[in-house]
């Protein structure tokens, strides 16, 4: 394969699938909300990557527009999420999710 040959589409799908899986597994095994949130961002961006690759591959630019929507929404989510984390840290002085056990049953 020539050095400048286009990357086949299947590779993009695989790359984004692997990124998504890393994010999902990370979300499930980590205990720190900030790391968990980074994992969510990784999952969202795996979706974005796939959108862009597919838009390029199929020649349908709508996919690239969707990425802007997703990025804008993710930014709004970050704002709310970090505010919640800060509010919890102020009273508990920890944000470990294992400490979030005020409710049982």
């Amino acid at each position, binding site marked *: 394969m020539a050095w400048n040959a286009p990357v086949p*589409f299947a590779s993009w*799908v695989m790359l*984004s699938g692997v990124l*998504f899986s890393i*994010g*999902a597994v990370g*979300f499930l095994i980590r205990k720190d*909300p900030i790391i*968990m*949130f980074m994992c*969510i961002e990784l*999952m*969202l961006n*795996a*979706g*974005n990557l*796939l*959108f862009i*690759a*597919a*838009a390029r*591959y*199929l020649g*349908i630019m*709508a*996919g690239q527009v*969707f990425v802007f*929507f*997703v990025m804008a*929404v993710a930014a*709004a*989510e970050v704002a*709310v*999420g970090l*505010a*919640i*984390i800060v*509010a*919890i840290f102020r*009273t*508990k002085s920890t*944000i470990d*999710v294992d400490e*979030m056990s*005020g*409710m049982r*049953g």
Partner: protein
Amino acid sequence: MRLKGLRMLFCSTLVGIASAAGHAAQAGSSDPGGAALVPSLMDLLLVSAPAAALCAAAMVVMMIGAFWPASGRRALPWIALAGIVATGWATLAAPRAYEGPVRLLALDSFTVIFSLLVLAATAIAVLLSVNYVNREEMARGEYYSLMMFSAAGALLMAAADDLILLFMGLELLSIPLYVLAGSARGREQSKEAALKYFLLGAFASSFLVFGAALVFASVGGTGYHQMALGLLLLGRGADALLAAGIAMVLIALAFKVALVPFHWWTPDVYQGAPTPVTAFMSIVAKAAGFAALVRIVSAGAHGDLPGWNALLWALAAATMVWGNLLALAQQNVKRLLAYSSIGHAGYLLLGVLTGTVNGFSALVFYLAAYGVTTLGAFGVAAFLAGKGDRIETLYDYRGAARRHPFVGALMAVFLFSLAGIPPFAGFFAKLYLFLAALEQGYVGLTVIAVLTSVLAVYYYLRVSVVMWMEEPREEPSEAPQFEPARLSAAALAALAFAVTLLGIFSSPVLRWSDRAAIAAVETGRGAAPGRTGIGEAQPSIPPVDIPEPGPVASVPSQE
């Protein structure tokens, strides 16, 4: 005097927004033929008018909350209600004018009826919030405006005909809810609920994004109709990318409506969130999620993927059994109602599984009945909770009905309806849903549904028994005061009346839910052009009798 002037100004702004939406609706009607392939800007404005009006009203409420002196904030809930009513009017006015094709948003009777359901639930949640918010000193403008933003997201989800728009609606629904869940800032549990809801909600929506990306990669679009068409062209579920994408969309929606095994967040969030917020999300988030599921199924966007029905069957069975079993063991009333809401999500999934007009119609009716009932039950919980939400276990509820016989009676009505005891709405809702499932031959699942709802009678009645039969607690110190909670009591009485009325005179609401279901199926079919033309593909929606519009159908013969 200046205050009065400002109030007039804001109210007239609201009316102006609403009438602009209405005028847009009427103006759009002039050009029905022009909207052939590409929707014009006018069409887009028209179809999004209700959600836009609600968002505009929410912004007005937020600004008032920020800039008015504290004394003026008593008017906030009423301004919010005015905005909701204006949105209802815009909802009714918009589709009368719109005849364009389905693009992004479908503006049919299903959208209208679901929007009215969501708006009514929001209005009631606002009414139930007033006393609570004042008691807990959360009386800031953002509370009501966040509720309205969230409802706008639900409106978009019910109308969405495209995965990206579904994602936008879902986020507009969820992000305000994360904040609302944590809005009782004094309570540790509330913040904990907010964090859990936020993390799991964001996790779920990333599944939706990746699912949409997979769908886009395999069919080149994210519209439900494109999904259906793509499935036809690719052969039945032949494409692994598409199947994975649709499965991920289903997972995201299952999180939102709390189906087992995607339900872990529900009990903690429902318990920790301020009770009126719990009431709001238990109906609005569920209704929006199920509306989206109905849209997807009726467009045939799930195709005839092998295993789809088996998957929904398993989800429904697991949700009904697990939700109701765990509710048996609960001591906290809010937690008990949370598990019961999981069980109800299982029943509602029956309606989606049938995929017929009857099933969808029963689902809409069930949502209406469940909505008034659950708003009432959580409303009573908010009423009895006392300052700081301290009274919420069954132990604390002992004898509560003796001290407040009126509220005890109302709670009994709501619990009986949730349990599905005959004269009330819950019974008929369950009946129609189970009949629709039997019609499609889901006998085993219906048996599970009936058995679990018998099981549920036990824990619902236990709450009522504890409230009526046991001796009251010794110290009546935290007795809720009737005086300031008069508005809540009135709203609860109206809800109990509605629960009874829906049970006894259900036919008008049934007619509406039939119309909504027929519209959903028709839009779904229209959204998949040619799907009946290809012999290979089995339509997943069995043919139904849609009443023919008589005079339009008959072509006048020219002799």
